[in-house]
């Protein structure tokens, strides 16, 4: 059952083979058993969770239910959920109980999904290994010595260890796709503006986007059906007609379902920085796509090498302002002792934020300062447009772009914590997608043996044009019809 697809679980719930309460309890039991080791969840509240499961069962009994009614999901702790502690894995919000629901949370509530708990993450989504969390690191279920990636590391581990049927994540520079690659599941970062950011705690507003993290493309499509949609409370939410992201999946069978599809391979994605074992897996996956009927085109993203420096100007700039509200005045951490207002601010923020968050606030404050703004922030905005333009050019020659989602397989905990730049390079293939606002997805494409002979998952990244999520999910689904990487589970967690 733990390896069932959302569709299968939905059918079992609908046919009353299993109740939502039973299903939920099964997950809660797994969580009780494995979470103390893996640390995927930072907040579990069985009473709340089971109340939702009972409500879902009542809905199913009346016949008023949808594909996700009664299905237990994990929610990244970046989404405000009414009555739930919502921390962003920061000491700053350690005791913050949200009085309101994020748009994503209320969409899942309306769909009748069950919230299993809030998942661990890098503090305020700043990190690529989940090691910046105030609540400690998360174990990669494929190798407990290794990180799950980040920032959505808790959701990633929860999906990989089957501690939930599916999860939500957010992706500012790769925080859904890189963990999906490192933990071996399917994760989709939608087009900027497709999913409302209301109630999703801001890191870098112009880059943040929520998306599904699940076992398969089909599961992601079902999740996205609930998450996507216009919300007038988010001015950057795009007002367009609702889509059914599962509509084209059934056609992805038979010989060459992807005939005519042009896949662009950016030469910059297969250059220095990519580990050889990952490159091999990606090449094999591309070969599989050829068999499915796709054509391969070489494309170029000449400014991709600028994406990391541009990102580390823009994201910290926005973050430095977004995180100003955590001042100890109205909610969140306040220092126990202080002599005046300035000291209260300084001590509260010094105590409440971790090192990486402070580093980015400092960078952001610096690049926005008078005298530096033009050289950093404005220049970065100009280059951001060039990076987006690269994709416009590339999509003249192809329908989707493919490549690695991360430069290597999961690395060991502690390996990169002392070298922030090495950590930042984890997002070499994902960041440009956020800067351009495009949708990107990572699907399991195989395994690479590490030096100790352990098999670690590798993700294939699929980048689509704006609002092309339905097509990308079809392309992922077609691959998952002829491969079984996405159904494999780590040893010892079954």
């Amino acid at each position, binding site marked *: 059952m733990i390896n069932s697809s959302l569709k299968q679980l939905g059918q079992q719930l609908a046919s009353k083979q299993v109740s939502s309460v039973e299903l939920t309890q099964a997950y809660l039991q797994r969580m009780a058993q494995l979470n103390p080791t893996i640390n995927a969840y930072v907040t579990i509240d069985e009473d709340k969770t089971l109340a939702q499961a009972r409500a879902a069962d009542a809905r199913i009994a009346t016949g008023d239910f949808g594909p996700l009614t009664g299905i237990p999901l994990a929610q990244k702790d970046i989404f405000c959920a009414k009555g739930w502690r919502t921390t962003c894995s920061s000491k700053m919000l350690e005791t913050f109980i949200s009085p309101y629901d994020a748009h994503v949370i209320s969409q899942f509530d309306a769909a009748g999904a069950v919230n299993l708990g809030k998942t661990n993450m890098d503090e305020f989504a700043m990190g690529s290994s989940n090691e910046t969390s105030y609540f400690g690191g998360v174990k990669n279920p494929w190798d407990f010595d290794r990180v799950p990636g980040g920032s959505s590391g808790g959701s990633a581990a929860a999906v990989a260890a089957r501690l939930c049927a599916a999860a939500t994540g957010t992706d500012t520079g790769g925080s859904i796709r890189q963990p999906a690659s490192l933990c071996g599941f399917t994760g989709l970062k939608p087009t900027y503006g497709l999913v409302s950011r209301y109630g999703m705690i801001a890191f870098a507003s112009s880059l943040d986007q929520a998306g599904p993290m699940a076992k398969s493309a089909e599961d992601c499509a079902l999740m996205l059906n609930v998450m996507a949609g216009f919300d007038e409370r988010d001015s950057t939410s795009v007002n367009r007609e609702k889509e059914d992201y599962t509509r084209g999946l059934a056609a992805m069978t038979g010989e060459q379902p992807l005939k005519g599809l042009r896949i662009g391979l950016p030469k910059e994605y297969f250059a220095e920085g990519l580990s050889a074992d990952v490159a091999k897996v990606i090449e094999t996956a591309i070969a599989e796509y050829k068999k499915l009927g796709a054509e391969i085109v070489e494309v170029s993203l000449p400014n991709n090498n600028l994406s990391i420096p541009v990102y580390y100007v823009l994201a910290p700039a926005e973050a430095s302002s977004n995180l100003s509200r955590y*001042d100890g005045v109205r909610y969140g951490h306040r220092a126990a002792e202080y002599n005046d207002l300035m000291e209260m601010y300084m001590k509260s923020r010094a105590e409440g934020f971790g090192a990486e968050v402070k580093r980015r606030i400092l960078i952001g404050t610096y690049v926005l300062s008078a005298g530096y703004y033009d050289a950093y922030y404005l220049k970065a905005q100009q280059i951001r447009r060039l990076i987006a333009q690269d994709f416009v050019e590339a999509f003249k020659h192809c329908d989707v772009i493919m490549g690695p989602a991360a430069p290597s397989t999961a690395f060991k905990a502690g390996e990169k914590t002392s070298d922030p730049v090495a950590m930042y390079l984890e997002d070499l293939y994902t960041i440009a997608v956020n800067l351009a606002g495009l949708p990107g997805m990572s699907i399991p494409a195989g395994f690479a043996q590490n030096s100790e002979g352990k098999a670690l998952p590798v993700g294939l990244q699929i980048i689509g044009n704006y609002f092309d999520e339905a097509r990308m999910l079809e392309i992922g689904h077609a691959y998952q019809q002829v491969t079984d990487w996405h159904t494999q589970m780590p040893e010892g967690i079954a």
Partner: protein
Amino acid sequence: MQWEVVIGLETHTQLQTKSKQFSGASTTYGADPNTQACEVSIALPGVLPVLNKEAVECAIKFGLAIEAEMAPRSVFSRKNYFYPDLPKGYQISQFELPVVGKGKITIQVPATKNTEAYEKVINITRAHLEEDAGKSVHGAVEGMSGIDLNRAGTPLLEIVTEPDMRSAAEAVAYAKKLHELVQWIGICDGNMQEGSFRCDVNVSVRPKGSDKLGTRREIKNLNSFKFMQQAIEYETQWQIETLEDGGTIQQATVLFNPDTGETRAMRSKEEANDYRYFPDPDLLPLEVTEADKARVKALMPELPQALQARLVSEYQLSSYDASTLTASRSQADYFVATVAAGAEPKQAANWVMGALSAKLNAEEKSIVDSPVSAAQLAALLKRIADNTISNNAAKQVFEGLWAGEGEVDAIIEAKGLKQVSDTGAIEAIINEVLAANQAMVDEYKAGKEKAFNALVGQCMKASKGKANPAQVNELLKAKLG
């Protein structure tokens, strides 16, 4: 040395919208602390701003009213600083691209003992939309400071002038004109006590004839015209004395203390914040199209300048009268209503600016609360025009109307004020007066013009003031031939 003061104003006008600039919370003044602070006002984690369309409409109205350039696209920026009443740690404002660009406002500077009244055009640099902060409340709880976020997020239009004013009188005339204008177009209630209209005044001095600006000091948060006048006068004198004593002026923000009548520096420029402005990524650029402007224009009342021109061309009023009558929308409305009810325009203007205005001032009443309605005043003026009563009698009727003694004709009847216009009756009175005052008649005939007026006076007295003075004049002249 002769000194010249240079003044520019920044005015925060609170826009009359139902909800806040970027959220649905109410903007009603005076509610219990923090009862009008929604999740956006408190800046909970994860909340986002949504621009209030009503506030944008107000800005467009103002832009149209001052014939300003309005960019098709303006941008909201974040002004970053820490303060307990600023929940997000930044204020959403407009920095590089404001919604309203260059425009102008014509002011009337009143006459003084030494100078005549004059008009002057004040150039407006820009007007931009922003949100207000909350309030710190000190002393409500012993040893603690409280924060009330009801006001946080209230929509403001900040209106900035060029440094065009050269005296406290000009600055006050501008502030009053702006105060009337924003109320005229219905974007601000103008309530200065509640902080709906607050002025920051930049003051510098320079040797007369110099075209270089001196170093300015900014007087913050003036909320009455009287204080503005006092503060500018004090500040100007202080700067001149400082310079004459060999000192220099440091750029600074100063506060005016109404009790002492002095200004005092609050913080100097060295302590000023670096606000780290950058475009707010949570908000899209604001687009104002020609169609938006046309739609808003259709909702606007006739503007004071246009009405003023119409009063001159249509009603043949002097431009002085027209400008005085349009000093406030309520007064203009009253005048237009009086004329619409049948009064002769020039006479209506004289009464509105004269007797009515004097009585309102004396009783500290606003024209909208006038006990004498425009229709009543028109009825009264008609009785003067048709010779039913004299001007003098009309004043008594006006008092009666003010006291609520009834309608015009009833008061005339009750007080017996009807004027005698019957030629025969007046001639009889004249004959009596002439017979009784032969000496005056002789004086007149000997060339003393004054004697004629004395005879008219005698006639009016004999008629108990009821004779039509024009007729008396005419008939008397004929008789004395």
